[in-house]
């Protein structure tokens, strides 16, 4: 029943769009492909759907060679980032389109369609034209069409990204409910996202992808606690994890000649060397005994303030748990939560995580 991707390579130009992707998807689970724009998420989903043929590699689904099956016989469903529906059909006709295409019995179609409409909360909108719906409703139609198909593989390509904030929150909750429902245990859900917070909230397995290459796979907790390398730490945190070159010398962790710490006991075992020192924005705190930083930008985000700071060549972002505007070049004192420090090799691999087992 599982979907297996083996060594998928897609290189239409001199750049890899998919670089040796091997993955295993199990039914009843939710997978989130997390990566920045142009990292290959959409290409990967399109390859699974069959809209794109990889240069090499194989895809097996339920023991069959998936690549030998054309798109229209694969029985997958896909929801796009743009709200893609059939503009010449009304809501109900849109949702029943794939079922009619499959020549399903009329009364069965009726039932599936009304189920799907119920699920996405579009009751009463059946005869509306697509153009008469709001963006959120249009995306619900696209989702209903995918759900009604009862496809074994459901691909969601950043389905919430073009919606406004409030709608996004609401629909995301509904997604979680829909994908954890009892009848969903037969299907594989693959959700592509650029938003680390969204990926964590969906709480499935996370696949971190960058430049067409898989950097790490694992549960949200695992990816959060033990990012495989510095790139993953950047992609899976918003604001990205602060990464600065530092060195350990004479029992001190030295970032530059101003910012030096006594080595915490947990790091005593690390040898004297240069490291990439990582710390999350939320682990930097305002502290009168802290180090001097100058403010580059301050952004207020909801109940928090992101401070972009620098001290000589050390740049970092701190999340302050209050709403306050800071002047550019204002001096602030910031301290690091040393128990939350990550160390990476200069080439990027994780050496030390505060959550290490």
């Amino acid at each position, binding site marked *: 029943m599982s979907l297996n991707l083996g060594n998928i390579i897609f290189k239409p130009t001199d750049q890899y769009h998919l670089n040796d992707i091997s993955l295993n998807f199990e039914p009843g689970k939710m997978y989130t492909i997390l990566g920045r724009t142009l990292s290959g998420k959409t290409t990967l989903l399109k390859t699974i759907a069959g809209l794109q043929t990889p240069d090499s590699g194989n895809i097996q689904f339920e023991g069959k060679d998936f690549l030998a099956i054309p798109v229209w016989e694969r029985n997958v469903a896909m929801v796009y980032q743009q709200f893609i529906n*059939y503009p010449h059909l009304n809501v109900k006709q849109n949702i029943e389109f794939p079922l009619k295409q*499959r020549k399903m019995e009329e009364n069965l179609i009726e039932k599936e369609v009304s189920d799907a409409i119920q699920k996405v909360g579009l009751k009463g909108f059946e005869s509306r034209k697509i153009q008469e719906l709001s963006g959120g409703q249009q995306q619900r139609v696209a989702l209903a069409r995918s759900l009604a198909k009862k496809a074994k593989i459901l691909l969601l390509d950043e389905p919430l990204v*073009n919606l406004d904030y409030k709608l996004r929150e609401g629909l995301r909750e509904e997604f979680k409910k829909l994908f954890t429902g009892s009848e969903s245990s037969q299907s594989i859900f693959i959700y592509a996202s650029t938003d680390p917070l969204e990926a964590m909230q969906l709480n499935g397995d996370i696949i971190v992808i960058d430049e067409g290459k898989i950097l790490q796979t694992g549960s949200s907790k695992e990816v959060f606690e033990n990012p495989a390398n510095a790139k993953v730490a950047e992609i899976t945190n918003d604001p990205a994890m602060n990464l600065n070159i530092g060195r350990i010398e004479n029992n001190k962790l030295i970032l530059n000649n101003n910012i030096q710490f006594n080595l915490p006991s947990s790091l005593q075992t690390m040898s004297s060397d240069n490291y990439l020192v990582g710390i999350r924005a939320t682990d930097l705190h305002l502290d009168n005994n802290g180090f001097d930083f100058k403010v580059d930008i301050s952004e207020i985000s909801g109940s928090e303030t992101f401070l972009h700071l620098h001290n000589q060549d050390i740049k970092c972002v701190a999340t302050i748990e209050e709403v306050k505007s800071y002047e550019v070049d204002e001096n602030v004192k910031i301290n690091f939560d040393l128990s939350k420090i990550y160390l990476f090799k200069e080439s990027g691999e994780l050496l030390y995580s505060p959550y290490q087992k």
Partner: protein
Amino acid sequence: MPKLYTFLKYFCVILWSCFVIAPFLWAISTSFKDFNSVTGGATYIPWLQFEPTLDGWSVLFKPGSQGGINIIGPYFNSIFVTFTASFISIALGTLAAYALSRYTFKAGFVQNNDITFFFISQRIMPPVVLSIPFFIFLSTIGLLDSLAGLILVYIVLLMPIAVWIMVDFFNRVPKEIDETALIDGCNPFQAFFKVVLPNSIPGMIVAGLFCIIFGWIDFFFAFILTFTNVQLLPVKIVALNSSITPWWSLSAAALVSVAPLIIVAFIVERFLSKGNLTGALK
């Protein structure tokens, strides 16, 4: 400010309407005149300023033996040739445009854009350049002076317009719609006929309108490629000319010949205001 804007807007619209409508009124009034009322100074209002007569109109429907030109035959020839050629051009042009918009073609240095340009380049050449090749071609295959030959030539002239308009139209239709149709179980042909085509009607109507206009107003090829068997309306109307220019029957003929275009424009206008594909995307 908004008041001034509204005033200016309507002023311009009315001015333009006068500009457009005045020649028609002029032609209608002239078509009911005779030699004396045309040459006897500017007059506009029938019965008051001149005595209306149907002579100008009756000439168009009388056979040649009674001094008329009988445009009924040529009229239907023109309608048949224009609409058939336009229909075929739209059908073929839409298919070609879809392929050019969605698939990548490559033969040496020739790519999609070059093929599109090849189509358009058919319209760049002045008709005079094409006339002799067309003449020789039609006479070789025995279709000179026939409706089929004219239709063939008109397809060559009209299809580039259709391809050009439809390529642009399809390029603005998100390809994700086709992809969704494929995912929803359509093979590529079904995706085109069940999803893309029903949403392309506005584009096809625009392309069709252009084809009909360009086909209908052609005089040059109709003049060169036909003799006596088959005649099209524009050619026949020229036969009206004699030593005295009969302005009254020329006006009547002009009105009769633009009538189909006006009717088509009024019908099409209703369709055009209905939704289009791009409206489906935010």
